[in-house]
């Protein structure tokens, strides 16, 4: 049963610290997405990749957020420096172009 995995599942950190979230997409999927979910904004697309190339990161604050795919089995989302307003659940999803996206369990981030 193929699944998207994310680590860590929970992260509590202090303002100003670096946060790195990791995602392993489903093997064979060629698109990977990062979403953020908050009560106020709902689900927001931060960035996505196709065949490891970044296609759109317009939803991401560029000054502190960065997303990469060092290889086909790993996607990372980094926040440096983190701020309290970054507190949210961050989801990774993967899929095939034009098909459904399958979500990971999410990383619940709390920035104090």
């Amino acid at each position, binding site marked *: 049963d193929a699944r998207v995995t994310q680590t860590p599942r929970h992260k509590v950190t202090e303002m100003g610290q670096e946060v790195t979230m990791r995602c392993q997409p489903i093997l064979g999927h060629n*698109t990977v997405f990062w979403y953020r979910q908050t009560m106020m904004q*709902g689900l927001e*697309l931060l960035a*996505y990749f196709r065949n490891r190339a970044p*296609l*759109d990161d317009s939803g991401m604050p560029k000054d502190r957020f960065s997303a990469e795919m060092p290889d086909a089995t790993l996607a990372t989302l980094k926040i440096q420096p983190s701020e309290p307003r970054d507190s949210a*659940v961050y989801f990774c999803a993967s899929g095939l*172009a034009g098909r*459904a996206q399958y*979500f990971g369990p999410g990383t619940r981030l709390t920035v104090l």
Partner: protein
Amino acid sequence: AQTVTQSQPEMSVQEAETVTLSCTYDTSESDYYLFWYKQPPSRQMILVIRQEAYKQQNATENRFSVNFQKAAKSFSLKISDSQLGDAAMYFCACLDEGAQKLVFGQGTRLTINP
């Protein structure tokens, strides 16, 4: 730009009965896909059902079915024989094949009354 609207923030239904969740969308694309995702308290986003816009036949997955009205840009989800485990937030989403972006509605919180 695509938009997805779920006009029912909350719905409730008695166990074993049927409930319909509404969704409307707007897109200028001719090729697109529509989805319903379920998010239980665990926060996991679970794909419930999908519909290709070019298919006239409504998608069905066990107790879940959709009523896809392309001209009206409506995509409602019907849950038959509701079970306690169906309690969750339900999100309608539209995938613009060209842009590859999933656009979500604001969600409908479904409560199942025993």
